[in-house]
């Protein structure tokens, strides 16, 4: 195993898998984008769910905090 072997692998790779030349986009993808935007339901971020769970747990453990929470809402 040496640098010469690595160079040989590199050369073989270059000769077996060639670079892509045609990278031109053939069509406008905006209609696809709009479709995806309209299909995706509004998702609640995981952080919001975690926050709600923590709040719910706190209210179960400390029910006396419910009036204070309602007051501050």
């Amino acid at each position, binding site marked *: 195993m040496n640098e010469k072997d*690595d160079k040989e*692998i590199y050369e073989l*790779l270059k*000769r*077996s898998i060639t670079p*892509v030349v045609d990278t031109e986009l053939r069509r406008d*993808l905006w209609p696809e984008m709009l479709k995806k935007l309209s299909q995706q339901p509004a998702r609640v971020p995981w952080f919001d769910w975690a926050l709600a769970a923590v709040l719910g747990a706190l209210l179960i453990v400390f029910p006396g905090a419910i009036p204070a929470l309602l007051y501050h809402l």
Partner: protein
Amino acid sequence: MELLQRFAAGDLDAFEVLFRQHQKEVYAWVVRIVRDRGIAEDLTVETFWRIYRARARFNPEGNFQGWARRIATNAALDYLRSARHETELPEDLPSRPEPDPAVRRETREQIRGAFRQLPAKYRLVATLALIEEEPYNKIAEATGLSAGLVKIRVFRAVRMLRKTLSSLAVPLGANK
């Protein structure tokens, strides 16, 4: 308000303008990683979907093109991870030059097969660095790695390829 500020604020018209401005370069970057037009189109849309969802985190003073390329690279990497064992390297995608006829077809197939077996993160950097000959700095920026780590991954990818080809008894020296 500037275009990027409007986009960050959730303006769909601003997003459309940015989409139309950058879809070609995102596609061109992704197609060189996944080497399949249809998949690259899907991943371009997926990239902009991720961009749209993350708009609130985008700094309007920042570089949208670089940010988009990084998200596109992550989308392509996710694809390589998920499709590692199914994806072929298409023969019909126009490339330059034609594979060297001096390299025997069987050897070529073995090399392509060994390349396909590389873990996605190594295949990504090896494709960009060794096949597409992108500079290390550009790959580093697109992957969020340091240039040094990109070099290490390329080096390891070559080592893995050599190990696989040795186990297949590919006659490395006989193809020159």
